[in-house]
């Protein structure tokens, strides 16, 4: 797997071969010089009786190690990152500046409420604008990310049905949905029933209605959906599911494509999570946290989780307990991702209502530009126009010996993070490209040129080029099969390696 050694050190300028931190440790090395502890140990039988196996390193070693690893990383600050469904757009530095203000960054969630009035006002103001933008009467701020938001919404649906003495069994989920949708429904104890997608990439309304019945608790539909298309039958779906006494959960992961233009509340939904980290731009992926507030209809609002912010005169207070007992509980120890709230509110306020409408407009325009510029070499999965992402199937690669995965690997050599591949599952060999609104036309044209060149190369019969890619990454193509079949999940010292290194 290691690349060929063409320098004495094995490094190539900025590309430095970095061993694991455990392989760099030298017994006795230390970054700090602390006095030997004196006095009696008070750990009793919990006292450590052997080494714990952490590597011994000096401070400069550690700094270099993590800096070098970060040089091998690819992020939105490095280049174009068209990972469909993930909305990898630029994170404005203004957001960061505000989130790092000492009065915000240094808060503790257990401070007396009288000392954090400003923080509660930020949560409350953000909540207000989320309700305005979605046209919904209530919002639960604490969910930690999109899937957590789904859990919040479906738990609210379950609580509402149980409170009405009408617990139900099934939840209908579109077959193009994010995998978290059926997982959420199953985690809440429901049987999941898939609703097929039409040839045009939409929820099949007739098939949907056929599956409805008095035991259906609700449905989960993503809009815009994972095929990058706007679901045109939302109102009919809402009417049908409400007609049998069920609830409508909308997966709002792709709200970035409609923000400022469509209010989901007008479409008849009962609950929807908003990925603040996507639509309102906070750093995510590879360790950045998410935040997934859930807007709720009047019917579900009483069941919203604790805690939430209320006004008492001029002051803000936190409701930590409900006397009427309708809240379904608590999703997090505290109030949600405060750092993300600050960034999301900064993003909203710096863009304004016209700016937010332009965000969704430009995201859709960029995706359609990509779709149009690639449509003659790749096959769009569905007739355009699309929303915020362009989706292709692999039929134009048929008989070339080159797969979607190969194209993705070759894109790494071209200096790009690849698009999302093999998702949504309803499209064969799917390539899901989400350019986002923050890429310039120059940046899109450069990517289009790479993509066209690669597809033309594949069609010209040069499959070997692809099977060998990536050539220029820190590591060549990984053996995913062995990694999955015989995973090595932890580092072992040289002496114990026999068993792991099969």
């Amino acid at each position, binding site marked *: 797997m290691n690349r060929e050694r063409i320098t004495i050190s094995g490094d190539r300028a900025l590309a430095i071969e970095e061993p694991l931190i455990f392989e760099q440790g030298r017994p006795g090395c230390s970054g700090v010089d602390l006095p030997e502890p004196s006095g009696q140990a008070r750990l009793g039988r919990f006292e450590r009786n052997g080494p714990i196996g952490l590597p011994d390193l000096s401070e400069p070693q550690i700094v270099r190690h993590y800096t070098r690893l970060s040089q091998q990383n690819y992020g939105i600050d490095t280049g174009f990152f068209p990972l469909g469904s993930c909305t990898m757009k630029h994170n404005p530095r203004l957001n960061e500046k505000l989130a790092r203000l000492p009065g915000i960054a240094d808060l503790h969630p257990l401070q007396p409420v009288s000392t954090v009035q400003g923080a509660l006002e930020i949560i409350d103001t953000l909540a207000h604008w989320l309700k305005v933008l979605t046209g919904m009467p209530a919002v639960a701020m604490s969910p930690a990310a999109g899937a957590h938001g789904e859990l919040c919404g479906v738990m609210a649906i379950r609580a509402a049905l149980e409170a009405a003495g009408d617990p139900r069994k099934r939840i209908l989920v579109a077959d193009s949905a994010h995998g978290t949708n059926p997982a959420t429904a199953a985690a809440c104890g429901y049987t999941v029933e898939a609703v097929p997608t039409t040839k045009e990439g939409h929820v099949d309304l007739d098939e949907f209605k056929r599956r409805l019945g008095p035991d259906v608790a609700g449905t989960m539909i993503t809009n815009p959906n994972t095929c990058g298309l706007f679901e045109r039958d939302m109102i009919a779906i809402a009417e049908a599911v409400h007609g049998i006494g069920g609830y409508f959960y909308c997966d709002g992961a792709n709200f970035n494509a409609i923000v400022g233009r469509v209010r989901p509340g007008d479409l008849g939904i009962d609950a929807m999570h908003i990925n603040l980290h996507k639509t309102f731009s906070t750093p995510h992926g590879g360790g950045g946290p998410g935040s997934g507030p859930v807007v709720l209809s009047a019917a579900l609002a009483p069941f919203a989780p604790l805690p939430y912010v209320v006004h008492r005169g001029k002051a803000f207070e936190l409701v930590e307990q409900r006397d009427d007992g309708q809240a379904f509980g608590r999703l997090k120890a505290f109030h949600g991702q405060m750092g993300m709230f600050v960034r999301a509110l900064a993003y909203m306020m710096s863009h304004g209502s016209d700016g937010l409408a332009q965000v969704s407009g430009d995201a859709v325009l960029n995706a359609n530009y990509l779709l149009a510029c690639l449509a003659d070499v790749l096959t769009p999965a569905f007739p355009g126009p699309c929303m915020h992402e362009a989706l292709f199937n692999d*039929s134009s690669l*048929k008989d070339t010996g080159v797969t979607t995965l190969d194209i993705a690997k070759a894109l790494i050599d071209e200096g790009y993070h690849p698009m999302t591949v*093999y998702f949504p*599952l309803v499209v*064969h060999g799917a390539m899901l490209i989400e350019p986002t609104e923050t890429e310039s036309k120059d940046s899109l044209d450069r990517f289009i040129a790479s993509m066209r060149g690669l597809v033309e190369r594949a069609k010209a019969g040069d499959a070997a080029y692809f099977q060998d890619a990536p050539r220029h990454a820190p590591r060549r193509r990984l053996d*995913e*099969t062995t990694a*999955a*079949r015989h995973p090595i999940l932890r580092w072992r010292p040289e002496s114990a390696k026999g068993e792991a290194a099969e």
Partner: protein
Amino acid sequence: MSDTKFTEEHEWIRVEGGIGTIGITDYAQKQLGDVVYVELPEPGRKVEKGKDMAVVESVKAASEVYAPVSGEVVEINAKLKDEPATVNAAPMAGGWFVKIRLSDPKELEGLLSETAYRDFVRGLH
């Protein structure tokens, strides 16, 4: 006498003496790519035609395997736990998933013959 039948979900079933051996087809294993894990039902479990019975996970995706007919699981291919690659190497032979005792042999009549399945696959891409 044995007779192999197929489903549009890419399972096959071969019945001998009231016991059906079930697996996934060659087309299915090719589409999945390298299989890395197979989750099988416990022997004794009742499976229902068209409902999920097992899970096959490849480097690309995790997919449900549906029971082509109803019945009770009498034996599972325990070898797949350690050697899931058998599904790729011999999907229609050593890579079988489960054996079930059919509760309603008439259900077989609704399944595809080998020729009909081959035509079905040809129409897919």
